[in-house]
């Protein structure tokens, strides 16, 4: 208990300092206004206190100039703060291109994490320093929230929909990982650590950890095992649309609308194939709800993505 009383969190991501500066500026503004109000209240309470021989109250109805002044000043201040903070928001929510993709599945009450290189971890996330990392997250049950205070970032992890967040750690060390959205009995034990390592340490760790197959290899195997390839042959005249080169493209649907071929669409089509049918195809695909877990769907997504990535032998979009 007495090993020092921390009053400020570690700052260990590329944008955490920007958040801190903004925070400290707001703290400064708040202290200024709180002291101003407090000083005026104390001053008036003493200076104009009711006492024997006081002159009594001077009736003042108001002042347009003052009202305008103290409407305009807060307005300008909060608008400036809005602009400043929204800039920070865009920094934190827009991942750089080619961030490393990690997959996170939340469930009551643990975090399951898979590295792009195939390693799996529970409640611990090892990451290299100075590498932008994007997490693609989904929940198997209720809403969770992936929160790393030292990086000043969190994002809700929803069931039925992917959410993402990104960070680039700047300092090696071990940091708290919390679930920040109340998720039931052991909410406060849905915690873990983010371990930031120097590049070479991370490589050593990777080679030491039991590296399973990469998500996309697992996805490829699942694609065959679930017999997806019998319809999605990639040949003309197949019963299912060709999936090569499709990632990120607009797809025409049978009802005349279009949809972007992305994670959410793929997930929906696997679980509820009737929802959106590609134009020119019959509605023949069965649902895989109950047969595939969220982890497996994420692997399939990784595989389908690789089919459109020339660098991984996929087709050009």
């Amino acid at each position, binding site marked *: 208990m007495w090993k020092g009383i921390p009053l400020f969190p570690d700052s260990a991501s590329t944008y955490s300092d920007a958040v801190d500066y903004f925070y400290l500026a707001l703290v400064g503004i708040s202290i200024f206004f709180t002291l101003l109000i407090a000083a005026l209240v104390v001053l008036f309470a003493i200076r104009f206190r009711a006492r024997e021989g006081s002159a009594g109250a001077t009736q003042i109805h108001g002042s347009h100039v003052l009202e305008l002044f103290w409407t305009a000043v807060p307005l300008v201040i909060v608008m400036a703060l809005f602009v400043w903070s929204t800039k920070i928001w865009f920094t934190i929510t827009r991942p750089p291109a080619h961030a490393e993709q990690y997959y996170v599945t939340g469930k009551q009450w643990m975090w399951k994490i898979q590295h792009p290189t195939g390693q799996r971890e529970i409640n611990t996330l090892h990451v290299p320093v100075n590498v932008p990392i994007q997490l693609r997250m989904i929940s198997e049950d209720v809403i969770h929230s992936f929160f790393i205070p030292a990086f000043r970032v969190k994002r809700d992890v929803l069931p039925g929909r992917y959410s993402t967040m990104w960070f680039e750690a700047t300092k090696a060390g071990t940091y708290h990982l919390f679930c920040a959205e109340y998720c039931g009995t052991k909410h406060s034990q849905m915690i873990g650590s983010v371990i930031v390592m120097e590049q070479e340490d991370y490589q050593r760790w990777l080679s030491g950890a039991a590296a399973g197959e990469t998500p996309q290899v697992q996805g490829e195997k699942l694609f065959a095992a679930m017999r997806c390839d019998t319809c999605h042959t990639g040949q003309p005249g197949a019963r299912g649309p060709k999936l090569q080169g499709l990632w990120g493209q607009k797809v025409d649907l049978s009802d005349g609308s279009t949809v972007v071929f992305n994670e959410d669409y793929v997930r929906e089509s696997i679980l509820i194939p009737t929802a959106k049918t590609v134009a020119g195809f019959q509605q023949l695909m069965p*649902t895989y709800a109950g047969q595939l877990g969220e982890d497996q769907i994420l692997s399939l997504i990784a595989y389908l993505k690789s089919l459109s990535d020339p660098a991984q032998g996929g087709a050009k979009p």
Partner: protein
Amino acid sequence: MSSVDATGLAHHFEDLEQQRESATLGMWAFLITEIMFFGGLFGAYVVYRTMYPEAWDNGSRELDVFLGAVNTTVLIGSSLTMALAVRCAAKGNNKQVAGFTLLTMVLGFVFLGVKVIEYKAKYDHHLIPGPGFMYGGHAGGHEQIFFALYFTMTGMHAFHMIIGAGLMIWVILRALKNSYTPQNHTHVEMIGLYWHFVDIVWIFLFPLLYLLGRHGHAIGAATGGHH
């Protein structure tokens, strides 16, 4: 304590006009809360319709437009009889107030009876949301959400009608005691307002649930067909 004098003026009002205006404003304020109440459901409807247009079309096609149209007519008719009841109350003609209110009530029950027939048909087709829901031969489609909203919206509407019918019994009893005078018939007016509101909610529900989407899209190649 809450004494009411012979003219129907309660103790805390200065005159009947103030009392009447207060009641009217109160009723309108209440109807605004009702609009917000149904507004929440309409909001959910819009969100899901935007998310799942195909399921919405499929759901619409399961509803019986004929029965829906019959019910719309019945309800508009009941609004007319309710308006006549209010008019008679303003003339102090208590007998006709009772008669028209009774007619309104009967029409209300016709509506509810038709609704029961429709609900029964949905039950037979496994379209009641929940574990037993089946659409097009399988469970778990987005059509379930359409039907969840269909039942909640029409159910809430029916619930409001039942309350209205209860209030009408009270009006009929009071009318039979010759309680309404040209100066004091606020109750009938208030219940009239309420009934028209219930009617208007249906005027929105009918096209949104039954009509929109039925012919909205050209149906593509066998999408989601279940027949």
